[in-house]
């Protein structure tokens, strides 16, 4: 079984982060929340693997591994 990758994995991390902020630029709080929600769903679908998704939910909730 593969595990959620929690080591640095994005080449050009600063570029990605800037793009993420730019996508939100000028949006109201509500529109930004909606965008984040859509982004989560798009990424989750790309990952697909249910076990990894559960690990990702736990990681995002800042839960330490048992």
């Amino acid at each position: 079984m593969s595990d959620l990758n929690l080591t640095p994995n994005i080449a050009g991390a600063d570029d990605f982060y800037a793009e993420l902020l730019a996508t939100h630029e000028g949006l109201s709080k509500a529109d930004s929340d909606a965008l984040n929600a859509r982004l989560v769903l798009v990424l989750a679908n790309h990952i697909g693997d249910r076990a990894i998704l559960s690990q990702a939910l736990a990681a995002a909730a800042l839960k330490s591994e048992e």
Partner: protein
Amino acid sequence: MNKIFEIPLYAYERSADQDAETPVRRKVVVVGAGPIGLGAAIDFAQQGIEVVVLDDNDKVSFGSRAVCYAKRPLEILDRLGCGKPMVDKGVEWNIGKVFFDERQVYQFDLLPEDGHEFPAFINLQQYYFEEYMVNRVRELQEQGAPIEIRGRNKVLKVEEKTDHAAILVDTPEGQYHLEADWLIACDGATSPIRGMMGLDFVGRIFEDNFLIADVIMEAEFPTERWFWFDPPFNKGQSALLHKQPDGVWRIDLQLGWDIDKEEEKKPENVIPRLKAMLGDDVEFELEWVSIYTFQCRRMETFRKGRVLFAGDAAHQVSPFGARGANSGLQDTDNLVWKMKLIFDGIADESLLDSYDYERIHGADENILNSSRSTDFITPKSDMSRVLRDAVLDLSEVHEFARPLVNSGRLSVPCTYDGSPLNSADALLDGPARTRPGSPCPDVPLGDEFLLPKLGDKFTLLTIDAEAPDSIEESGITVTRLALSTKTDPTQMLKERFLGEAESGVYLIRPDQHVAARRPSFDETLIRAAIRRAIGKE
């Protein structure tokens, strides 16, 4: 013209039991002539077991209530002799459309699998459904079957005794006492019997109200299921439009929690809402209006001594997914053959523990599915609404999001995984859908179909395998049904029952669920499987 639900179909008639000196003892008394009570009674009568149905009313369901019936209940109803009239009268549909705000976000096709005698779904008013069942009762009576419906017989009291239930019944001509070896409580969601016996009914009540209206109209809408999230005509809420026979349309409008139910039900308030939805120029007539609060809950156990609960009395779900009547019919389908074996002295009363196990499993699956639909349709927090709306927005442009849209997961029968009546799966390459515990899927056999051949007796289905023509075990005769994939042009038999396996031997229960399967006949193991399937191993 009177509507069918306004005509007494089983008018009160005095029964000799009312004049008896001491309470008459009946074998089986069913309380409630709703779809589940009638289904149980027909099943008992077909097995030659004397049954009396008591109902406090004398008519079929007031208004349509349940409209959507799934394949498995239709197959069960066919075994009970009323499946075909339902399909003939019902409306078949496959296309659904989902709207969000002002736009259609996508449409789907149920794409029903080929090779089944019955359609995936039909829509039909509950009053027709009950009428066909009453017709079937009359037909059985003409054939001399021991079945009786007593209209306007209201059960006032039920007392549990060691070997029977004592019942007090009220009629237009006064009260009488009756005894039942076994009482089947099918007295609906508010089950007075549950209350009389002080039994629990636990679960979740959803804080929401829905206006349910059946309207008669000449409309151009196609035969499709239309579901709206947050439409302009019902802001912040949901709506559903679904077709029934006779130009009747079912409309569900979510109203929210904080409303005055009596006010909302008045035609002067209902009609403007419907006009906003259907358009000002559509002419319609209101047939029936009701307001519902949904609940998802079940009894802790469906049996209390000689009293068994089935249908809405035992469990309740929200209507998203059409699981109420559909699952109730699976309850009595599961129960009646077991009781028949107990009456025949073949099985012990402990076989009824498996009714509890299997149907609680079914109820929990239905409650889980319908709670999830309700949570999607009515988000309970700001963030759940944000996520829900994100799914809907994405579903318009990206296919991946469509399976996440949940406007009701339509009823499918449950597999009794882990049931004590199952033998371990020994057909290792066999398809998952026919593993022990599963309801047999139908298969075309030339001009005929598999399920009617299975009927309501234990069957040994052999596919490209040898076995004796019949086996006697513990008082049960299991008859062989020999089939071959070599003569099956569709190859559906292979696909649904063999998968990668070369051959298969299935032990099938009277309710058409798989009890055991193996690659070939093995007398010792099949005999053990039969004993296990009747609770004796």
